[in-house]
């Protein structure tokens, strides 16, 4: 997969931290004042969870070049682990449960990452399917994981941080936003560190990486661990903050593909790309249903919506792979550069 980030523009640019800081200020200060509960429940919460999952998968697939179809399994592992830590460990704060859940997901990631030491590309992708099916099977088979609930569906615990309840839509939004912001910042630090450059080296030329003394095996397993940790925490956000229920069926292969599409559309090997891709994946079906309902009226029922969604999304992915393999991020940067230049010349 071509995953070469776009070159930096030659136009004068703001310091790198300005845009993220402004966005965060907007997300914390302005959005809660103007947002409706529909915006939080239907758009922002799934967007945040999927963005974080995309960031996690991008570390593994975009940066380290290891294709994975097991993302939803790691989300499920995170969600169920957090649920059980929260339920069974007396006095453990919520943040502690979430952190330990990430560790559990990372451990599972390492186990299912072991084939990557031998396999690559298509064969590795197929072997990560094993994670997908195994985790779902185990969660369904052993009712202990869902605290022997008859339906297998369990309610997420109340969200509170040091006694401060975060149960409303806005509260859960703050909860998700904070975790996503912190982990994204750390992920950004990681990919621009020596370890991050090692990931890219292993992706671009494994033999050369080995020859110059990069610990290739360790680097691959580390990529699986870190990626699964982040995806596991994304699973917690998905279950605890967005859906408010935890069930294995929500973390099926479709979800894994969805996250893969997010990073392909958004841009491989780009942290921003995960957010671009997730935004498209979340907003696109809503927009399509509005548009379809407006144009076609009652004919455009949920069956038609579902089908047209798949068709358009499939077409989009093919288009991106052919025309813009570096994703929305590259497209965005190009447009921005054009605008800047146009603005400068006037």
């Amino acid at each position: 997969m071509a995953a070469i980030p776009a070159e930096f523009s030659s136009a004068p640019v703001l310091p790198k931290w300005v845009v993220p800081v402004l966005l965060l200020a907007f997300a914390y200060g302005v959005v809660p004042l103007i947002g409706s509960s529909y915006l939080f429940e239907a758009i922002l919460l799934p967007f945040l969870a999927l963005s974080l999952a995309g960031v996690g998968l991008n570390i593994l697939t975009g940066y380290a070049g290891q294709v994975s179809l097991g993302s939803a399994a790691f989300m499920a592992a995170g969600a169920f682990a957090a649920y059980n830590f929260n339920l069974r460990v007396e006095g453990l704060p919520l943040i502690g449960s979430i952190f330990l859940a990430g560790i559990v997901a990372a451990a599972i990631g390492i186990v299912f990452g072991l084939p990557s030491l031998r396999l690559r590309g298509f064969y590795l992708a197929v072997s990560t399917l094993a994670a997908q099916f195994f985790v779902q099977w185990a969660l369904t088979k052993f009712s202990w994981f869902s605290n022997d609930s008859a339906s297998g569906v369990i309610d997420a615990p109340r969200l509170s941080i040091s006694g401060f309840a975060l149960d409303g839509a806005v509260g859960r939004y703050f909860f998700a936003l904070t975790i996503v912001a912190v982990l994204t910042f750390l992920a950004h630090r990681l990919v621009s560190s020596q370890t991050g450059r090692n990931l890219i080296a292993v992706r671009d030329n494994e033999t050369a990486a080995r020859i110059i003394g990069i610990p290739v095996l360790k680097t691959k397993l580390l990529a699986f661990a870190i990626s699964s940790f982040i995806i596991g925490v994304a699973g917690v956000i998905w279950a605890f903050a967005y859906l408010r229920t935890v069930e294995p069926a929500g973390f099926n292969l479709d979800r894994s593909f969805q996250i893969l599409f997010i990073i392909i559309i958004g841009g491989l090997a780009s942290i921003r790309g995960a957010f671009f891709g997730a935004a498209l994946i979340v907003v696109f079906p809503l927009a399509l249903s509005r548009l379809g309902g407006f144009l076609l009226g009652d004919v455009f029922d949920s069956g038609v919506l579902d089908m047209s969604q798949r068709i358009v999304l499939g077409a989009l992915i093919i288009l991106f792979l052919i025309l813009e393999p570096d994703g929305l991020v590259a497209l965005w940067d190009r447009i921005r550069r054009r605008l800047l230049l146009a603005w400068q010349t006037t």
Partner: protein
Amino acid sequence: MALSGSALGLMEASVYAPEVFARGLPASLLSGEQAEGRAVSVEPVAGPAPLLSLQGIGLSFGGVVALADIDLSVNPGEIRAIIGPNGAGKSSLINVISGVYRPDRGHIGLHGIGYAQVPTQRLARLGVARTFQNLALFKGLSVLDNVAAGLAYKVRSNFAGQVLGIGRSREERRDSLNRADQILDFLDLAAVRDRLAGTLPYGLQKRVELARALVAEPRLLLLDEPMAGMTANEKSEMAAFVRAARDRFATTVVLIEHDVGVVMGLSDRIAVLDYGRKIADATPDEVRNDPRVIDAYLGVASDNEALSRNEGRAGI
């Protein structure tokens, strides 16, 4: 790339079996080996100890014999060329020396320590660096980071320290960037320092690969056709860089190159391979006049040489 798949599988499955068969080694290298309980026997060797010595190397792929009973010794500080027609086994030999291939037979002696297969992941620490016949840069990294990656074997900070910016990670980064910058200056690459490696023209990418290998200041530098596909001007530039690198870092060089003119001018001794066998091993002048070499290789190659000289003239 030619050395994927089976080669890597081979590498990971192998058991390294080094044994000492020469004396006069740096104590640090030796003690490391002995501490691991791998060094077993010591055989005295007359004369100056070669930095690299191959003994009876044999390698075949299925029915194809890539290397047959190759002996080769490389003395410290020399530029040692390996020439021969396409498919003669030159790249295979470099792959054997760098541990990418495990030979079916024979030993590789490095700094006097013998290996059945050279441990690739310790290669950099053993003071060996190499370039590849086909470009093997990290396309998604800048030129600077590609070169700094050549120091990856020295990194001791862990990822948590790097993410949080604590411990020795900052210092390490500063040091490796400094050294990478020095090499970029040395090879006249400073102007493309921040470009993505994959966006450079071919000739420059070749030079960046040399920089990545040189930044570790290796004692042994293996160059697999560093001038392939270059114009005559680029070739002579590259030849000058190789010589300068040898002089500046006291590096021993093993050089594969098809351009006989370049090879004759650059190397101290030349080994000639044909169908996996070594058919000559001597000084440039002797090799030039060796009838077997002329038959097998030079007869064809001199045409190429004349051609590239004409190109050169046209270029000036």
